[in-house]
């Protein structure tokens, strides 16, 4: 018998505070994945996820239950990570990493993989994603791993639907390009 998110939230509101651990355990890996995709640093991602859960608990009163709890939570994770990225960029007096598309193009796409790495499609895609501009890696995570709809991604990121769709399209196109470059050198069209 597994309780729904709404059941657990109702119990927490009724005073069973330690029940929040159940929600943390239910969403910790998904949240961690989103944070790692955005921050590209496990340690910092771990801190960000902790912060996000702490915030989520404090804001639980304001969760209305119209959206899925996951979507509501990922919005918090997303914002915590975005704040960290902005702070990081300010510290290094550079651009906000999140929108850095130019850097990617200047490098000529993802770095070339060694053969052992390229032999494994999953690992190849993983490292390709890690070298995409952060906003694309984030979109891919939200869509494929957090399993959100386009509309849910809009509510997580506050981006308009058109932008979400364009970024997803662009992310897949870039990945496809890397894949073909790696696995099918004879094909030049995508």
């Amino acid at each position, binding site marked *: 018998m597994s309780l729904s998110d709404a059941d657990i939230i109702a119990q927490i509101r009724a*005073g*069973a*505070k*330690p029940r*929040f*651990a159940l929600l*943390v*355990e239910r969403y*910790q*890996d*998904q*949240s*961690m*994945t989103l*944070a*790692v995709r955005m921050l590209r640093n*496990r340690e910092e*991602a*771990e801190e960000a*996820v*902790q912060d996000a*859960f*702490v915030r989520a*608990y*404090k804001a639980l009163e304001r969760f209305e239950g119209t959206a899925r709890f996951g979507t509501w939570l990922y919005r918090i994770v997303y914002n915590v990570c975005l704040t960290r990225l902005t702070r990081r960029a300010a510290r290094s007096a550079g651009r906000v990493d999140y929108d850095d598309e130019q850097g990617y193009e200047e490098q000529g796409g993802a770095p070339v993989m060694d053969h052992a790495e390229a032999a494994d*499609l*999953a690992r190849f*895609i*993983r490292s390709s994603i890690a070298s995409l501009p952060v906003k694309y890696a984030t979109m*891919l995570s939200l869509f*494929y*791993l957090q399993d959100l709809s386009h509309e849910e991604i809009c509510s997580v990121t506050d981006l308009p639907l058109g932008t979400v769709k364009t970024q997803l*399209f662009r992310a*897949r*196109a870039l*990945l*496809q390009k890397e*894949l*073909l470059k790696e696995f099918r050198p004879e094909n030049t*069209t*995508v």
Partner: protein
Amino acid sequence: MNHLSQEELQDHAGGDLPDERAAAAADLHLRTCAECARRIDHFRALERALRSMPLERASEDLSRTVLKRLGIREGQSWLFTLFMNFAPLLALLAVLAVVHFILGRQPAGAPGQNSGEGVRTLFQFADKYSAVGIQSVNDWVGKYLAFMKGRGGLTGFLILFLGAIALLDKYIVMPLIRRRL
């Protein structure tokens, strides 16, 4: 004939074309165009790979750390607090009940001291801390737990008694509480 755009290929591979008519038109084209069929295969492979990416694992003690940061002690509900405070007392009462039950079953005409007397003194012991109480506990131990005779008797009894409470608390009372929460 127009090839499918990259956007159409992606949408089709992800099962996300805007309507049935568009999907049917794309299907028709894919059946007759080897070039587009090859390209959509690539997108389908990418789609599959993206959907089967493993998740990152959060550290084992994340939930504990979060609760700690929030100042929530595990099992801080009113029910838990109640049981936490009363568990040793409940265990004590349970042990006394068992002792009472065992003594109550002894035949009334047992040789030596009256067992009923011993039990009554045992309860009085809790109230009065009287030397008489301790003495009768000692007598009782000497009678029913013959293997712990003499001066070590009371100590032995207390060890057994406290041990029983501890075991009861650890293996029965606390697990029940945890399951309840």
